[in-house]
């Protein structure tokens, strides 16, 4: 919304300089988005008088004029032949910028030119070029009394500061969408008393009507249109508004149209109350009905767009059908034009919710709708309409030809009981009640004792906290001292999951891995590439891009999607991880919301060159190594990698190739899946062969973590190490060998550990492999003899050989 400081100054004193005022508005009223000095764009444009006029000898449409611009008499050629000697015009001299283009990327700066052979010194401005209106066909004839040579700025009060306000900061303030309301606040934030124009406070008597035109109104939807007033005017002359009025409208962003529309818009700009003018003779039977539309009813709007009216939209109708979309936009069928003789002026109040719904449904955000959406007071209608009718000159000398038809709803005066001490307590301030009251009185909120009387235009004041906001805002939040609250010294509970997440971040980043954050949304295409089902995914219905259409049920595809581009950047190998939430339609919580799973996803990838140079085996083990590193660092010692044939068990199973995929188990709890990706996924995302990943559930991990910490006393006596190699058939897994062997050694007296040294296979399809384990052994109580040791080892080896059909070699 644009605010004109000149208009504000007509309503209140402004004692601050422009910069201070803007700062003050920012800190106590609303966010200033932008401010411009209007005079800049009219700099050096002069009022000039035509002293000679003749047609162009070589061009039908051009006129040749000698003008006196107060400095000199010069010739200008214009695309308008109708100017006469004595007319005043705006002369934009060579070297000046056409005002309408002032803020364009490439402003139009005039040069002295020849037009069809004749010299033209600059331009005589049209309404459009001067940014006063839309007319581009003729030169704007100025209606000023000021002599030639006067600056245009002086002639039309263009030395103005235009302040652009962020609407969002005034969502709750319908009154501030009118200059009177804004000016009231400008007074308030300067600690000045504001007084509204008397007609704004009291109801002005309606001018006498000659009752020459009949008019009737039926309001069938009082709930969403609490007030609908209409009045008929006769003997209307439609013409251009006085230029001063045009500039007032155009400088705050409202397009001047003609004297009638401009008059209604002027009152809207001043009060926030929109009005609408119909051509009386186009309102069938002069009978207006306010109602919901009948099924399928259509209306062509003023902007030429045809709509099928939404069933909940308040519709203004005559006896034939709709003539306006109430509170939003008029219809083309009842539009006033130059031939209009009689008009109906509507001044009505519409429910903000209803207007919002209509605006949204039809995608129309007109000046009127913007104001009604803030919830204007119905009490405004009568006052504004009466005031408008009491200035016949503004309506082109029209005669009031009917009574004001329609009922005003009465608005009960609201009172709030306020304890000024309480306000101080809420703010942490120490403001005398007199000062608090003065701040309110300044903006015409009447106080009496502990009561505050809410003015009709303030629909945002309902509870004493609202009054507290008013007082603290008007007196300046910067005057409130920052203090620290006192609190108990109770220790804060630390969330275990949060601790685990932080640890994992540290552990993985210390292990050369990079943490990524990727979008929560994934595309259908990505899911297709990795062959994951989109059925359990929540679809976002207003996604800005297909890339974010579905809420992900796994973080892995998003991570995998980042591998290729980093290889391309020259990273030969990488370990990437992300910690985040996933959602699936298959998991709904007790609160009926989707359960949010907390996941850790990890991928490792090495391009072919790096893989050959640095990694001998399969990517699966590389990722598994990271997982085991995490487990041991988090104090989880007991876990298993288990084959899982059923793809359906876990959503991410489908990402992994079945022959190189394992379920991660801690006791009976499944933690997640680790594996190498399917050929399809690798191809789809251009991943190298040496790539793998895992995804685990962090809530499960957290819940299992605390249980499994254990401590082994340090050995006091020297131990020994033995390497043992078993020839192992294909069907027997490494883990079977290790656990079986370990089981046969375990003894309360012993401290031992076993770790893998080597796995050897003669050729790829060998029926057996040789697994070498290193056993380290010590006794808690004594130094063992080599015989004792050999006995233990041999016994364990024998039992292992027997149980698993192995052979020690």
């Amino acid at each position, binding site marked *: 919304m644009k605010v004109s400081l000149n208009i504000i100054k007509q309503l209140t004193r402004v004692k601050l300089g422009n910069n201070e005022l803007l700062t003050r508005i920012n800190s106590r009223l*609303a*966010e200033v988005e932008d401010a411009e000095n209007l005079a800049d764009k009219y700099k050096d444009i002069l009022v000039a008088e035509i002293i000679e006029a003749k047609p162009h000898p070589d061009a039908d449409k051009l006129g040749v004029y000698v003008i006196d611009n107060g400095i000199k008499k010069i010739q200008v050629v214009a695309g308008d032949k109708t100017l006469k000697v004595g007319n005043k015009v705006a002369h934009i001299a060579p070297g000046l910028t056409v005002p309408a283009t002032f803020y364009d990327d490439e402003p139009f700066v005039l040069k002295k030119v020849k037009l069809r052979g004749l010299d033209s010194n600059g331009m005589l401005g049209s309404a459009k070029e001067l940014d006063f209106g839309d007319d581009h066909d003729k030169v704007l004839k100025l209606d000023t009394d000021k002599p030639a040579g006067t600056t245009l700025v002086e002639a039309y009060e263009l030395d103005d500061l235009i302040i652009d306000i962020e609407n969002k*900061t005034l*969502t709750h303030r319908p009154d501030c969408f009118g200059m009177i309301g804004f000016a009231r606040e400008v007074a308030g934030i300067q600690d000045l008393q504001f007084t509204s124009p008397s007609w704004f406070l009291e109801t002005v008597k309606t001018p006498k009507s000659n009752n020459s035109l009949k008019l009737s109104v039926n309001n069938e939807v009082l709930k969403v249109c609490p007030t609908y007033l209409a009045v008929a005017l006769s003997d209307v002359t439609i013409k251009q508004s006085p230029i001063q009025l045009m500039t007032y409208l155009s400088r705050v962003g409202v397009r001047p149209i003609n004297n009638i529309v401009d008059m209604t818009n002027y009152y809207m700009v001043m009060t926030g109350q929109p009005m609408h003018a119909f051509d009386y003779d186009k309102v069938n039977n002069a009978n207006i009905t306010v109602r919901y539309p009948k099924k399928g009813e259509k209306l062509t709007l003023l902007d030429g767009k045809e709509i099928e009216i939404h069933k909940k939209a308040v519709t203004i109708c005559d006896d034939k059908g709709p003539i306006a979309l109430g509170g939003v936009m008029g219809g083309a069928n009842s539009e006033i034009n130059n031939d209009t003789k009689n008009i109906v002026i509507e001044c009505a109040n519409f429910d903000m*919710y209803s207007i919002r719904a209509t605006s949204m449904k039809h995608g129309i955000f007109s000046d009127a709708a913007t104001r009604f959406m*803030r919830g204007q007071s119905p009490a405004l209608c009568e006052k504004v309409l009466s005031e408008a009718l009491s200035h016949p000159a503004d309506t082109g000398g029209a005669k009031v030809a009917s009574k004001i038809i329609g009922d005003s709803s009465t608005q009960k005066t609201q009172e709030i009981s306020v304890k000024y001490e309480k306000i101080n307590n809420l703010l942490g301030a120490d403001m005398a009640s007199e000062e608090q009251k003065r701040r309110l009185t300044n903006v015409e909120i009447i106080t009496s004792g502990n009561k505050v009387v809410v003015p009709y235009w303030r629909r945002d004041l309902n*509870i004493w906290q609202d009054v*507290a*906001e008013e007082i603290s805002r008007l007196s300046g*939040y910067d005057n409130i001292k*920052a203090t*620290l609250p006192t*609190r*108990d010294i*109770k220790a*804060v509970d*630390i969330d275990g999951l949060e601790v685990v997440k*932080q640890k994992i*971040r540290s552990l993985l*980043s*210390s*292990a050369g*891995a*990079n*943490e*990524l954050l990727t979008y*929560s949304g994934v595309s259908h295409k990505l899911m297709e590439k990795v062959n994951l089902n989109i059925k359990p995914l*929540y679809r*976002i*219905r*207003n996604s*800005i891009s297909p890339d974010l259409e579905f809420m992900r049920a796994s973080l892995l595809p998003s991570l995998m*999607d*980042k591998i290729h581009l*980093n290889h391309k*950047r020259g*990273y030969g190998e990488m*370990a990437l991880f992300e*910690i985040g*939430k996933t959602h699936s339609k298959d998991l709904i919580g007790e609160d*009926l*919301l*989707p359960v949010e799973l907390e996941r850790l996803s990890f991928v490792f990838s090495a391009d072919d060159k790096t893989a050959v140079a*640095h*990694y*001998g*085996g399969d990517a*699966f*083990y590389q990722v*598994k190594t990271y997982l085991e590193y995490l487990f041991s660092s988090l104090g989880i010692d007991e876990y*298993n990698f*288990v084959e899982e044939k059923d793809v359906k068990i876990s959503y991410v199973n489908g990402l992994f190739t079945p022959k*190189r995929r394992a379920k991660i188990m801690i006791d009976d709890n499944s933690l997640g899946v680790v594996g190498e990706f399917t*050929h*399809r996924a690798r191809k789809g995302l251009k991943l190298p062969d040496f790539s793998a990943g895992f995804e685990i559930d962090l809530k499960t991990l957290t819940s299992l973590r605390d249980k499994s910490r254990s401590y082994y006393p340090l050995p006091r006596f020297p131990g020994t190490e033995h390497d043992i190699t078993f020839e192992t058939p294909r069907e027997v897994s490494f*883990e*079977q060998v290790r656990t079986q062997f370990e089981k046969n050694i375990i003894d309360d007296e012993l401290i031992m550990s076993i770790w*893998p040294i080597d796995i050897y*296979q003669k050729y790829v399809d060998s029926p057996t*492999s040789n697994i070498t384990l290193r056993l380290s052994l010590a006794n808690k109580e004594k130094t063992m003899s080599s015989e004792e040791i050999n006995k233990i080892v041999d016994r364990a080896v024998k039992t292992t050989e027997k149980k698993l059909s192995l052979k020690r070699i």
Partner: protein
Amino acid sequence: MSQKNNDIDDVRKELKKKVNELEDARSILRGPELRDLFKKLSSLPTSDRAKFGQEINSLKNELIGLIQVKEEKTLESEIITLDITAPFSANVPEDKKPRILSAERGSKHPISMELENIKDIFVRMGFNVEESRQLDDDYHMFTSLNFPKDHPARDDYDTFMTEEGLILPAHTSTMQNRVMKKYQLPVRVVMPGRTFRNEDVDTTHEHTFHQVEGVYVDKGVTLGDMLGTLVAFFEEYFGQQIEYKTQPFFFPFVEPGLEFLIKKPEALKKPGESESWMEVMGCGMIHPNVLKEVNINPDKYSGFAWGLGVERMVMLKYGIEDIRHFMSGNLDFLRQFK
């Protein structure tokens, strides 16, 4: 027409069989069957061509799909089964065994790193931490926060919504109602989380970003306490005194409602850089209706709440020029944050 359809159906049957039988299934795409169909196309009257052409193409796409599935199957079948319990592959020399990468390549994401930092400061100040949800309902996004149904103030939040009507939170305030129910009075909680707005992305705007919400409810909590708490946080975060100012703002869930701005700290300024103010959060005294919604008596208790924008702070702290880097997954960017 039916004759032509039959032609296609026959060819389809024939070729599907071939996909299964032929070793090089892909060769049928270049084979005579499809070629003949295309030939037939040109002999048809113009009016029939479009439809017949579409049918041939859909057959071709169907075959391509089948061939791909078959090829993938073949490739999968060639994969050697691993012993998933083993620590490494067979025959791997010691220097090529699996191992973790060196620490200097690792990195934490700057956003999560700074979130940890922010959380840590608030924990030290006595706040609990509760992460916010990423899919929520209308009640927590709006209704519990004193946004009446259909209220125009809802339009100020360009929310994403799922087909079921679930909302991707546009602010972490969605958690206010939950934590005030969950924790005993006095309530002191910060709620970091991911938030979403339906907004076009450029160097300073993202549709996905992070906020840290905070609430403090107790007897006698004042607006001055809010300012003091926030200043204390920022001074701890930036490690120096800060200058702040406030601007009135409308949020239905606070009264009074403010925007909180800080002056760019000296330490972060480049030589000769002029002073600038940054909006870092919205804040205010919790609206009585929001307290009533969780059965806290607003006559006895008062509180404040805020929503801190994380990206902007992090960009300020490190001088990051483009907000899009955060979600880019680009290692050139990420590896700078240790």
